[in-house]
Structures are given as C-alpha cells and as structure tokens.
C-alpha cells in the first residue's frame, strides 16, 4: 500500500479527475470572466479590447454603487441575524424538551428551493390578498403597506425571507458546534457557581469562536453575491429599489447586451468578496485559538 501511495503517477491519477473538474468548472470561468471584463462585447458579435474602461465606468456608475449599497445592507442584516440564530441554538443545545423537533422545524426553509420560497412570500406580501395585509386590515389599519411596491420598504421586505431562509443552516452549524463543547467544562463552571448566562457567554461562546468566524464570512460573502429571491420577487425593482450587485450584473450581461461590462461587475464582485473575507479574518483573528 505504501508503495502504491508513494508512486507519484498514482497520486496524480487520483487527484487528476477532481483537479480537471475544478479547473473546467471554476478556475477557467473565473479567468474568462476577468478576460471578458476587459472587452467591449455585446455577448454576440466581435469583441473589442478596451483595457480597464469597464472598471472605470464601474467606479462612476451610480446605479452600481446603489446596488452595492443594498448588498452591503443585506450583509449587515445577515450578520446581525447571526446573533439571533446563536441565541436560538444555545436554547436548543441546552437540555430542553423537543430540541430535536425544533431543530428540524428551523431547518425546513433550507430544504425549499429559493423559487418556492419567493412564490410563498409573494403570496404573503400580496397587497390585497396577502396574509399580512389581510391581518392588518382586520385590526383596522387602512393604508396597509405595499410590501413589494413601496420603494422605501421593498428591500427590507425581501430581507425577511432571505434571513428566514438561512436560519436553519446557521442554527444547524451553531447547534453542532455547541454540542461539541465538552460537558465537563460546563459542569465544572456550574459547580463553581456560574449562572447559565455566564456559562453561555464566558465558556460556550469562546469555545465556538472559530465556527462563529466562519459563519460571519459565509453570511457576508453570501449576502454580497445574493441573487435568487430578489430576482424572482422583484427583479430589482421597482425602479432599482431592490437592485443588488448580482441582479445588476445579470441585467447588464443578459438584458442590455453589455456582456463585457457585466463580466467586469462579476469579477469586481469576486475581488470584493476576497477582500472582505480577508478583512473579516484579520479583524476576528485572535492571538491564540482556544483549544478544547
């Protein structure tokens, strides 16, 4: 066995399929996107090399920055919602009855496809027949909010299903991490007279700090590139009020035939995500990782 594994050719043979797949599906498209971003191209006819003009246009494109602002806002809300998920997970990981059932219930939205979730929430938000407005009307509110039509609130209306959609995912991660916290530590603390609050804040939280960092990165990067619910529910409208980077990129590349510019936006988005990831890692880096 050792002999086989030390044969470089055999190692290459094992690694090659995955490597090729990764190249073809991930790295080559990344390189191509960067390449197209340097072109003036409608996605159909001939390309024309224009250097960094697309990126210059990007910097001055107010619609893009407005969309980027919306994506940033979503990132902030997603990270804030992590606090809520963490609290729920702590409650679930404590020995309460039916924790398993709750965990499964929270996980359900994750199992639905984004389109189904979008359809569901479009019903809920319907201006006259929707559950929310029906309820508001029944308690006597006359000018019920136009959830998806009012440019001032449409963005937040969409954030709610997005945050709901991912609740199960993060709760599952936190729950698993909390379950890994050694019981001896918790019990030792309890004997020393620590309150449940202190146990949670001073013992459990530091011990799962690594996982929390990962989820922050996931939440931020996931928000920056977020597309599906927004596309199905509003297509970025009305009048760009719920436009995010990814939907703007899609529109540029496919609806308005600015494929080169769309690629530049996509590539910029990648760079942005890498930079943000780097900074989050920097900011949250602690000198010593807690070991247990």
């Amino acid at each position, binding site marked *: 066995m050792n002999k086989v594994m030390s044969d470089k050719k055999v190692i290459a043979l094992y690694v090659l399929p995955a490597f090729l797949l990764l190249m073809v599906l991930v790295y080559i498209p990344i390189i191509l996107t960067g390449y197209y971003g340097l072109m003036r191209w409608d996605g159909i006819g001939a390309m024309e090399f224009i250097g960094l003009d697309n990126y210059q246009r990007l910097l001055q494109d107010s619609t893009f920055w407005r969309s980027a602002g919306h994506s940033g806002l979503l990132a902030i809300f997603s990270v804030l919602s992590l606090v809520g998920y963490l609290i729920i997970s702590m409650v679930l990981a404590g020995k309460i009855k039916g924790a398993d059932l709750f965990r499964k219930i929270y996980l359900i939205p994750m199992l639905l496809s984004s389109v189904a979730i979008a359809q569901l929430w479009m019903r809920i938000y319907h*201006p006259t027949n929707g559950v929310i407005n029906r309820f508001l009307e029944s308690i006597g509110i006359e000018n019920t909010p136009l959830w998806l039509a009012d440019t001032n609130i*449409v963005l937040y209306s969409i954030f709610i299903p997005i945050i709901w959609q991912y609740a199960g995912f993060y709760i599952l991660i936190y729950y698993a991490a909390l379950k890994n916290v050694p019981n001896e530590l918790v019990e030792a603390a309890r004997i020393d007279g620590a309150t449940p609050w202190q146990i949670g804040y001073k013992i459990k939280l530091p011990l799962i700090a*690594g996982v929390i960092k*990962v989820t922050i*990165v996931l939440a931020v990067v996931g928000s920056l*590139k977020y597309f599906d619910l927004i596309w199905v529910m509003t297509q970025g409208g009305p009048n760009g009020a719920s436009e995010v980077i*990814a939907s703007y990129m899609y529109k540029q590349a496919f609806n308005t*035939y600015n494929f080169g510019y769309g690629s530049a936006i996509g590539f910029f988005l990648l760079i942005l995500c890498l930079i943000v990831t780097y900074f989050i890692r920097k900011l949250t880096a602690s000198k010593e990782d807690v070991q247990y």
Partner: protein
Amino acid sequence: MFKKAFTKVMAVGFTSVLLFAACSGDEPTETGSGDQAGNGQEDVTIDFMHLWPSGSSPDHNRIVDGIIAEFEEMHPHVTVEVETLENEQYRNQLQVISSSNQLPDVGMTWAAGFMEPYVRGERFASLEDIFDDEFRDSFVGGVLDGYQVDGETYALPVELNIAPVFYNQAIFAEYGLEVPKTYDEFLQVIDTLVENGETPITLGNRDAWTGSMWYMYLADRFGGETALNEAIDRTGSFENDALIDAAREIQTMVERDAFIRGFNGLSDQEAKSEFMNGNSAMYMIGSWDLPNFTTNEDVPQEFRDSIDFFRFPAVEGGAGDVDSWVGGPGVGLFVAENSDVKEEAKDFVKHFVERWGEQSVEEAGIIPGTQVDTSAVDLPDLFIDVLNELNNATNITMYADVQMSANVADTHLDLIQALYGLEITPEEFAQQHEQALLEEE
C-alpha cells in the same frame, strides 16, 4: 491551526462557488446540435430551435411538428432536428450559443431591439432573396418593419398582436357603465368604479412593459402616431408636450386610484389573475391572451362570456386616432448566417410561415404575421373582432421597449415604474428619456 486552514478553505471555496454562479453564463455550452454530415451526399439536417415545448404549449408544438413533417415529405433529403426551450431559457441560450457562433440553422428571435445585436454581429442571414411580391403582400402591412435592419429583412414574423383594453361586462353592467368613447368618459368610468369599491384596472407593473402600454396609448392619443416613434428614432425629441402630457395623465390615473393596489410590486401574471377572478373591471394585454377569454376550457364559461374589449378612447384635442393601436410582432424565424444549409433553411422558413399562417389562429389562438381570411376560419367572435380591428388599424405602434435599444429600454422600464410610483415628475420622466436616447446616438 487546523481550524484556520479550514476557515480559509471554506472562504476560498465559497468565493469560487460564488464566482462560478456569478458567471456560469460564460461557460462554453455544448448544444447537442451542430452540423452533422448526412449519410448520402444530398442528405442534410436543419437544426431548428423554438420556444414552444410540448408540455407548456401543446397546440403550438403540434402545429410545428405537422409543418416539419410536411416539409420533410416535400424534401426527402432534409431532416429537421428540433430543440425546444422555455421562453426565458431560450433567450439566455440563444445569447450563449450565439457568442460561440453555434446558432441553430433556424431559430426564433424577437423583433427590433432584441435582434439588432445579432444582425450587427453577423449572426443572422438576410432573408431578402426569398421574397417575391406575392409573398411580401401576404404579410400584414408594416409588420416586417420590425424585423428589418438597414432596410433588409432578417426574420419572418409568426406572431402579431395588438393590445386592446379588455373589460368585464358584468362589472360594467352592475354600475350601468358604457364603453367610454373619450378619455373624459374613461376617467368617469374609473371614478364610478372607485366610488363603488371596485378595482378599475389591474396592472402588473413589476413587468413594466404592461405599464408602458398604457403610457404609449396616451402618448399616441395626445401626440398622434408619430410622437413617440420620432422621439425614439431621434427625428424628434422626448421632451415633447404630448409625451409629457401623457406622462401627467398616467399620474392622474394613479392618483384617482385607477390601478390596483401595489401594482408596482405585482407581476403581470398576478395582475391577470385579479382580472380572471372578476376582481377587476379592466385589463390591458396583448391579443395573445385571447384564448383565455374565448376558448380556454380551464376558464369558467361565465367569465369568458362576460369579456369584451374596447379601443383606447380618444383624447379631446389630441392628434391621435382611435384606430391606432399599440402592438407589434412577437417572435419571428431567423436563418443563421453561418448555416451550412442556408438554402434549405430559407425554404423551410418560407414554408413554415405560409403554413403557420393558415393554421395558427384556429389551432393555437395565435394571430400570425400573415393576413388571415376571417371569412374562412371558424373562430369565436372576440377573435374575429380583434382580427377585424387589426385589418382596420390605421397604425400599429410597436411596444416602446421593443423599439428601443436594450439599454434605453432598460431605462424606459425603470422610468415607467418611477412614473407610476409618483417618484418623478412628468418633466423629469421626459428629460431622463431624452438623456438616455441622446447617449445612444
């Protein structure tokens, strides 16, 4: 240490996945079509891509298959290979395979602004050489214009629609309302309906092209059939009193609660269902929806019987004519420039359009781009009425978002939502259009 590495891997992996998702349109796509050498010397294959899958458009699909079978019988050496995709996927697929120059020999395209990049990129073949006078005359007047670039025709229409105001006679009767002949009467109808707690007009302005049609009618009735067209083709200006007045009237209608609550957040489908459920008195849509109001067995008979349509009323003192319609061609057939079987493909397209025109209204409820002999077809009255209106039309103004280049159309649709949402003034609406059009020049 392990955890750090893990985080890094997660982060990098995730961003890669994101980029893959972000640019999956870039991948070279295998189409499964491609040119196949025939067995014998003469055998050829025409690859044909259309957007009527048998699942969602069974009637259309059946007619297409029939025409193909006929064509193959007439030309034994030709095989037609069909690939179908749903509307949205079709649009995306067309662009992706076009970028790698792998268009099918024959396919479907939309008119004007949509197809122009394909023509400029030399992807579509000119079809001028298949016209003789008789064939040209078989089309409804002006319908070919939408498929012309620099005076040459690059596609043949299989679909032509106008957008009437459909209304529910039962609701009108309940409040003793008559079909409005003038715009003032129209506003009175709206007021009466609002007073009685009805929704006068259902509108799904998330799909802003529907809101655009109402605006286009007002523009036409105020400024005549040329005002909007000239603003778009730059022989005129968008900052034209008629176009500003039309925008102001849209806002008047919004302020009078003419449109359904939350229209800017509703899709056309959602808006339509309000009409189909009898919750709304009026609905403007292209004549492609006629089957829903006539032959579609899934819709209750009672509802279908209560639906009629009227022409958008005249504006007093306006330059417009009530026989001028908003509408235009839908999809048309193109032949790829790099096709190996151009001759056969062109024959096929011509044959298709001729045979399609004879069957499409009766069998699938699609009004073809070719003239229909209303006396020879057995159709519901509503269809005959629309066909007659089409024949009597003094003008058909093509949908603004189709006429415009893709960039301007995008701005136009956003501005339509802003106008209806009372976020901009009519003057700003006109001025921002003018600016977008100027940038394109």
